[in-house]
């Protein structure tokens, strides 16, 4: 008798579950469609129309082949996917682009873009603005003529967005940054490759980002974590940079003049500028002719009362350093020349410019803001000592990184729902 009751209860639950399922099915209006676009005549009109008419839940499949566009494309529908047949198979070529400041512009939420390439856009390749939820997976952006200042500025360009994922992507040839995330929150950039850009990967004025397992090589600078004033979102913080290879960044700076990235010297592995709560660990930094790792303040003029130009709570630990500083780019910006002069040619693996509020430069950083370095003994370090400089020392530097040892407080991993 007991067994029967349990069986009855089980059946009742199954029936209920089924009833609930049926109710939901009929209540929901979302019946997702698959829309297929193939190469051929009028491809731009067909593809753009599909992107406009698609509805939430739909998947737009761009079949493998070569597509050439004279105009940019735009997507403004929430909750859709645009999927090619692969970054080598579905090629969207914008070398003949006559209008449009991007290759593809996305302005809607919960969008997934996967498995296609955007080549030779006249401006930025893929721009995503104001999105809550954007997944960019296995995509390639490339300028195929090599590093040139006439190339577009950004390969991947999400800005003012939240829950940003860049995974398994490839960025080549951008005249500013290959993979760039700006003024956004909750970001993961992983498993991606950035090569032959000015900046390989750049996180700017953003909050909560994990940048890991990426390869940044043959850029001017491999990975940049920047914070700039006079922008709607600033005070970048909580950035983890780990398990990346930032190596052999040996491309001359080809940014068009006037851009701040034009100050980055050839041969920088990672630059941390301003920003708070940055953890740099388990990376391989090698083959960077100016410096493997540089931590600096923003030193340009600004009247922005809300902006704090100095880095705070930067933790550097367990990284591996290969050859660095063997070919400093002293003609670009100030960093390389300053470092070369002040180190008398003994270029360090890690450089901190030592710039902060005057009280800190004299009395040292407070415990809750200070730079922490925990690396092997043979890793070299240099910082400029304002105190020594003011006291007239001929060599106003400190090179003992043991003074910067401390307890590492690991930052929390970034969590994006469903990832």
């Amino acid at each position, binding site marked *: 008798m007991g067994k029967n009751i349990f069986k009855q209860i089980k059946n009742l639950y199954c029936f209920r579950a089924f009833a609930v399922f049926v109710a939901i099915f009929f209540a929901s209006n979302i019946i997702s469609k698959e829309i297929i676009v193939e190469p051929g005549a009028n491809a731009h009109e067909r593809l753009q*129309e599909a992107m406009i008419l698609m509805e939430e839940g739909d998947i737009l499949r761009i079949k493998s082949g070569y597509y050439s566009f004279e105009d940019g494309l735009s997507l403004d529908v929430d909750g859709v996917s645009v999927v090619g047949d692969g970054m080598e198979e579905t090629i969207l070529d914008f070398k003949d682009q006559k*209008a449009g400041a991007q290759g593809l512009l996305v302005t809607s939420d919960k969008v997934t873009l996967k498995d296609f390439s955007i080549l030779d856009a006249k401006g930025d390749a893929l721009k995503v603005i104001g999105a809550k939820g954007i997944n960019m997976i296995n995509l390639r952006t490339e300028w195929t003529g090599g590093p040139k200042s006439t190339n577009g500025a950004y390969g991947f360009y999400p800005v003012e967005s939240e829950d940003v994922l860049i995974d398994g992507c490839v960025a080549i040839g951008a005249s500013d940054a290959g993979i760039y995330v700006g003024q956004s929150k909750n970001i993961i950039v992983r498993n991606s490759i950035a090569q032959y850009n000015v900046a390989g990967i750049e996180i700017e004025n953003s909050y909560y980002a994990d940048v890991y397992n990426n390869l940044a090589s043959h850029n001017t600078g491999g990975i940049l974590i920047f914070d700039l004033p006079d922008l709607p979102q600033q005070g970048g913080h909580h950035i983890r940079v780990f398990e990346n290879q930032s190596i052999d960044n040996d491309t001359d700076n080809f940014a068009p003049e006037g851009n701040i990235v034009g100050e980055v010297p050839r041969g920088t592995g990672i630059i941390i500028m301003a920003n708070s709560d940055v953890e740099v660990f388990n990376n391989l930094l090698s083959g960077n002719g100016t410096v493997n790792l540089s931590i600096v303040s923003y030193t340009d003029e600004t009247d922005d009362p809300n902006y704090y130009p100095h880095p705070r709570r930067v933790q550097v630990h367990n990284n591996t350093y290969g050859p660095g500083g063997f070919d400093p780019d002293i003609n670009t910006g100030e960093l390389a020349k300053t470092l070369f002069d002040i180190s008398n040619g003994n270029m360090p693996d890690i450089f901190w410019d030592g710039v902060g509020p005057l009280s800190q430069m004299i009395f040292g950083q407070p415990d809750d803001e200070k730079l922490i370095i925990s690396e092997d003994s043979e890793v070299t370090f240099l910082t400029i000592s304002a105190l020594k400089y003011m006291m007239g020392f001929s060599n106003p530097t400190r090179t003992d990184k043991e003074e910067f040892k401390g307890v590492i407080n690991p930052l929390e991993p970034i969590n994006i729902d469903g990832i």
Partner: protein
Amino acid sequence: MLCTKLYAVNDNLIISEAFPEKLSDFSFFKDSSAQIPHEEVIPYELISTLFSDYSYKQRWVYVPKSKKAKYEEDWVFNFPTGSALIKTFYYPVDERNPSAGKQLLETRLLLRKEDGWEAVSYAWNKEQNEAYKKVAGKTINVAWTDFVGEEKEVRYRVPNVNQCKECHAADDKISPIGPKARNINKELEFEDGNFNQLVYWMNREIIDEYPLELNSPVDWMDESKNINDRVRSYLDVNCGHCHSPTGNANSTGLYLHLNETRDIHLGKYKKPVATGRGSGGLKYSIVPGKPEESILLHRMESMDPGVMMPESGRALTHEEAVVMVREWILLMQN
């Protein structure tokens, strides 16, 4: 006796979910090709207008019978459901000779449906007797003869639905941006006489009120006006829809809408943020006294898709505006 005046405009079609294939289905015009509207479709002009590759524009407003648009301070009138804003773009065949005819390119519609505004453009056929919905936009290669007898041509782009939203947006929803009380505060020659448009709209009972005190923008083409007022008016309408704290370009920190007063946000000695090669190798948006060193002027002059500003809406350089802005920067004090 029955009132036999039937309103010709298809009210139901304006508020229905889908847009019809043909513009004529709306029945806005008595004579489509000659662009003569039905009586209840009222022509209007704005004081300060957007540059669109030297194309001419005719605008009309339609508000359904017994409804009125509500006046909103510093914003467009709040039009009731069922309203339509209609704008035809065309080039004359020869600017010196109006009787040579017009080349109608497109008629853009902003329709106020139950849930909000929707926009789409209709491109005119070669026969010039019908316009067809173009969701994805269209390229039209146009040629015309200008005032001084020169042959001009342009690769004219009819915008797609997403591009409408680049400027026509407020809080991520499509919105009209032209018919603000302050921008229609001018005289127009109507069939029944010359009237100030605000007065006329009141008389036609399509608006509920308007303020007597209005700070209207200057017509930037009016060379008798102060150059700063002219330029600010031009930048507001051509740039300010994106370059404002609520527009698409708010991430840049460059704000060119009418109410901006802070030098750095207006571009003076402002460094570019994500301009890329749009900077043209220059360092600041505006260098007072030095137009040739100013990124803003450089991007106004450019016709390169990766450099030009606005990003969409033009293919040609607005030569006259470039001259005006160049002078403005030249005269600017530090």
